[in-house]
């Protein structure tokens, strides 16, 4: 009898626990973040320039800085971020399940992903395109000479499809070898298992630095796809989506207004109306976003503007040495453009 009562009790407790778990309501991401004290940010397991851990486990990269900007905006401290490394396969489920608040993991913005996965793309922090890397001694100058080649592909992106489309369009054949991680792709390419390596061009430059002799490989000029990379948030929380958007825009507007982490304090007193709107002295500020009015100031002060982030992580001040190209501001011939703070 005693046993039966115990069992019944256990069953009841189980029922109660699970119904309780279901009953609690979905709170907003911003509230969760503030309560928790840090942002959970999904990044890659290691891609130089975008998100990569150093020996001590500190993360750096252009994707990392987007999350840091959001932390500066929401919590006033760019270091209040917990980075969660994700493989390509896990990234969307991790966001959907709430394991992370924002996914900033060189993710290409496509229609399917934006519309059918229950996610929203925030914007673009790097305009990329798929390209090819070959060894110089192959004597190839265009991808059109690559009929019949063996190609190393890194899994988990739109890469496989673009690759197939490109070769079909030019009625060429190829042999695809799909690897899970960049380490294996590099190994396959370096050993000569593949004639070429295909991936987003930024990644190719990054992977090239990992070769034993980076000078012996070249990235071909062809760009066979559009790969706008940007952060992603869950669908259905517009406030959080707006916060992510305007954190990103703050970076770009910061560059446009000539504000850097070094000079922004000096320019606080300026009477330039655009700048005073930006730093929240006048204008809408952060009220509608439920953020402090100086959120954009905090971003630029603690993380820097888009130019600083770019040069530091992938540009001239990094081993990748990628030129701004189409990632230059619209004023400078690129396509990086942000709506005004007004």
């Amino acid at each position, binding site marked *: 009898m005693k046993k039966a009562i115990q069992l019944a009790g256990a069953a009841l407790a189980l029922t109660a626990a699970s119904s309780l778990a279901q009953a609690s309501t979905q709170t907003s991401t911003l509230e969760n973040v503030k309560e928790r004290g840090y942002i959970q940010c999904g990044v890659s397991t290691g891609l130089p320039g975008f998100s990569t851990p150093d020996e001590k486990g500190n993360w750096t990269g252009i994707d990392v800085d987007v999350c840091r900007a959001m932390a500066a905006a929401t919590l006033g401290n760019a270091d209040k971020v917990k980075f969660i490394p994700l493989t390509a396969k896990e990234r969307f489920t991790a966001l959907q399940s*709430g394991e992370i608040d924002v996914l900033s993991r060189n993710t290409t913005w496509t229609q399917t992903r934006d519309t059918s996965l229950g996610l929203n793309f925030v914007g673009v922090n790097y305009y990329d395109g798929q390209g090819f890397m070959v060894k110089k001694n192959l004597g190839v100058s265009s991808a059109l000479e690559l009929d019949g080649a063996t190609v190393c592909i890194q899994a988990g992106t739109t890469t496989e499809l673009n690759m197939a489309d490109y070769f079909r369009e030019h009625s060429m054949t190829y042999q695809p070898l799909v690897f899970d991680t960049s380490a294996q792709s590099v190994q396959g390419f370096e050993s000569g298992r593949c004639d070429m390596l295909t991936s987003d061009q930024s990644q190719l430059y990054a992977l090239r630095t990992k070769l034993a002799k980076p000078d012996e490989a070249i990235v071909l000029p062809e760009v066979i796809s559009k790969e706008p990379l940007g952060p992603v948030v869950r669908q259905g929380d517009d406030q959080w989506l707006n916060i992510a958007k305007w954190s990103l825009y703050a970076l770009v507007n910061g560059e446009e207004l000539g504000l850097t982490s070094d000079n922004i304090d000096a320019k606080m007193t300026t009477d330039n109306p655009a700048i005073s709107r930006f730093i929240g002295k006048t204008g809408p500020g952060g009220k509608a976003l439920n953020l402090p009015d100086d959120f954009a100031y905090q971003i630029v002060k603690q993380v820097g503007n888009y130019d600083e982030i770019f040069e530091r992580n992938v540009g001239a001040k990094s081993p990748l040495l990628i030129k701004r190209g189409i990632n230059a501001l619209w004023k400078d011939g690129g396509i990086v453009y942000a709506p005004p703070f007004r």
Partner: protein
Amino acid sequence: MIVNDKNIPSRPAPASTRGIAGWLRENLFSTPGNSVLTFMGLAFLVWAIPPIFQWAVLQADFIGVNKEACTSEGACWVFVSARFQQFMYGFYPDTELWRVNIFFAQMTAVLVWVLWDKMPRRTWGGVWFLTGFPLTSFILLHGGFLGLETVETHKWGGLMLTLVLSLVGMVIALPIGILLALGRRSDMPAVSSFCTVFIEIWRGVPLITILFMASVMLPLFIPGDIELDKLARAMIGISLFEAALIAEVIRGGLQAMPKGQYEAADAMGLSYWQGMRLIIMPQVLKISIPGIVNTFVQLFKDTSLVLIIGLFDLLAVMQAGITDVNWPNISIEAFVFTGFVFWAFCFGMSRYSVALERKLDTGHKS
């Protein structure tokens, strides 16, 4: 009449069967076929050993801090010492490493207590292994209590993560496995068929699909607002997989129990659970220890698969090390070192289980 009342003195064995020559003849050159095999084996050794020895020891570099220290032809073990901290602790913060060291020490102590048969009160050791040890280890490693700084699980890595994964797998799997084994042998059709199906399904699929399921599907199974750490999810997957394996080991032990033991328990008027707890299980667990240790060895090796879902265990840390720009062409050294670490653990454990098996064998047999 001549009667020889003395034994003829025994003569020594023919020279060809004595001494080194005899041994050689007996063991290496007994037939032409054997001689050929011996020469082939020797040729293989001559071909393989000197270059390996030269590479690994004679021409290797041991001291230094970076790749420049490796000037000679052979292996560059500098890599291992330079990355030693990562191999052991992953990205665990520098200032908190003492916590991991205490964990290692406690683990060694508890395992010796449980596994060495000369230790007193081993049952209590087992209870501590299943309760106190995981609890204290969690508090120690994760922190957030008693003024310890919280160290998030994504900073865990290296050998420490490998050990944590396999030990947690063991601690959770053992009780579940025992229940499953008992359930499978139960008279109740509903219970036994459920346990059978459960065991066979988990045993029949690759661990890698289970890990994928844990990392991709599990978040969908639980209510949307409950979050489970990635490491926790991997642990759930590994534990259930391990439980199915343990269940089969325990079932073997249960089957080996003479029927008289069950009947004796019934005759004493003990209830099912009392009989199990007081009579059957102590014996079953004792004879199952070699099997359990073997399963543990299997699991210890299999934890290397978490590399595929992006956790930084020993193998994954090593792979990350290979891709470091500052250390080109280091892969062989890294593989050999990692392989050696795994080998040392697994070999030690399997030796233990073999020795134990021998020991149990000499005992009374039914």
